[in-house]
């Protein structure tokens, strides 16, 4: 008991130390940014405080964005569009990727037939095919969702396949000798066994999907932070662009933190 509480205390200390180190890293980055802002003219770079001020000021309403006829007239409205698309794209792609990857890992012939195609698709730079998606699906909100979903599916299918292959066969053998049917084995053994490894893939997919979504929006979308950046860059509004970049970073960090908190709760056994 005493040993367990000592371990717990040690864990909380190392967690606090980890948070402090991360904060220190962010501080160094902001310091460097501020230094560069002092050295460069405001038309090239503004400091973090100016960017935050712009973000607060234009969160609900930006006359420039309103001028271009967007229904969401502030950064907040644009952000809602982007966040929704990323979440839907990653959720759909994640589900398809995990189910597909686990299924492929369990059927040798199908895997042999599809794995080269998956690996090949994985090597194609997704940003390069983005104009094709705009041509195929038009300037619609679901165009970027499809792109994010496709990217997530390919990535997570590979993670899921590897995770299912890495799961010790003894776990499933035990379930079989307990009389568990396929459905029970998948739900009670396979899914909990592979999820921690898949979580790593999900974080990578999420991190990349923000950039993917925003870039897709700059090519053509009815709304979104990417469109906001496009409009602001046409008027050389460096302060506004940096404000949106900050907003994207903050949202990405928040979503990742929520994912990690959920993972800590779900994977307490690790």
């Amino acid at each position, binding site marked *: 008991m005493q040993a367990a509480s000592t371990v717990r205390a040690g864990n909380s200390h190392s967690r606090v130390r980890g948070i402090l180190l991360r904060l220190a890293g962010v501080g160094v980055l902001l310091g460097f940014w501020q230094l560069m802002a002092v050295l460069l003219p405001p038309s090239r770079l503004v400091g973090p405080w100016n960017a935050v001020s712009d973000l607060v000021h234009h969160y609900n309403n930006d006359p420039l964005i309103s001028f271009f006829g967007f229904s969401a007239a502030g950064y907040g409205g644009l952000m809602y569009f982007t966040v929704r698309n990323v979440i839907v794209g990653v959720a759909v792609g994640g589900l398809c990727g995990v189910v597909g990857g686990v299924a492929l890992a369990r059927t040798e012939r199908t895997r042999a037939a599809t794995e080269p195609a998956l690996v090949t698709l994985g090597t194609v730079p997704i940003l390069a095919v983005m104009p094709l998606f705009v041509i195929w699906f038009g300037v619609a909100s679901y165009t970027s969702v499809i792109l994010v979903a496709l990217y997530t599916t390919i990535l997570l299918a590979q993670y899921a396949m590897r995770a299912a292959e890495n799961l010790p066969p*003894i776990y499933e*053998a035990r379930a*079989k*000798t307990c009389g568990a049917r396929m459905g029970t084995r998948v739900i009670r053994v396979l899914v909990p066994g592979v999820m921690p490894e898949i979580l790593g893939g999900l974080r990578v997919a999420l991190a990349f999907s923000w950039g993917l979504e925003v870039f897709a929006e700059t090519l053509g979308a009815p709304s979104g932070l990417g469109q906001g950046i496009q409009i602001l860059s046409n008027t050389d509004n460096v302060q506004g662009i940096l404000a949106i970049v900050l907003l994207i970073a903050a949202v990405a960090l928040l979503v990742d933190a929520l994912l990690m908190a959920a993972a800590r709760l779900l994977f307490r056994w690790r």
Partner: protein
Amino acid sequence: MKTARISSQKSEDSDSSQAANISAGRTTGALQSLGDRAPNADVRLDAVSVTFMRSNGDRVTAIENVDLTVKTGELLCVIGRSGEGKTTLLNVVAGLVEPSEGRVLVGEREIHGTGADRGVIFQGDAVYPWMRVADNVGFGLRVKGVRRPERERVVDEYLELVGLSHVAKSWPRELSGGMRSRVAVASVFANDPEVLLADEPFGALDYVTRRRLQGVMLDLWQRTGKTILFVTHDVEEALLLATRIIVVGGGHVLDDRPVNLARPRDEEVLASSEAVETRRRLLSYLGLEPGAGSAVGQTNE
């Protein structure tokens, strides 16, 4: 059989409550109901052969034309050197490997594939790390659809018997190797299989923990009267546990004899002339010089 008398090995620390139960000969509800039942759980192998195909195309015969019957309630130890077919023999009975020829029967049923009637304690760690100890022990019962109150009752009883009640809510990563082995043993017994198959379950444990778990195993067998096939490298383990020992070599049963030593098998019994003679014979099958028995038994491989 059902009136428990523990063997000389178990009396250590956290097993004290368990030892008290055992020495008092108390049997709890779930165990009594298991023990009262006397199904025909004979295991019969009729001319069973298993042939594997290597990746280079070579055929390897793991066991060949094996005829074997294990009577209900027997504790049969299977010994032999590595790669001689012990685990294959066990896997065939478990249904994890299909025989290339011949058939396997449990009772009157010919078996194909795995089933809850044959529980396996695996050589490796098969305790699910994502389930708490109690959930691990109750996993088989849950699969069977046993309702929660009944499941919890059975789980509690088996956890008490293996001395793990205090860690019922713990995660497996918080347990030692020996404790996890006890979880594995409790899990299989709690699932109430007709036949229990153990594949060198204690081989990776230190000497003291192994002796303690042998005691737990023996006690549960005495209480439940299960038919057990126990694969081991260790001659001393076989002498301590078995009602009968077979030696497997080259895919064949080389020797098959009952062990009529008295129980509990304490130092005195294991030093008797009959035990010495059995040990000598078993060691000679394993290719060891007669007289090297005690040293081999203590070092375990």
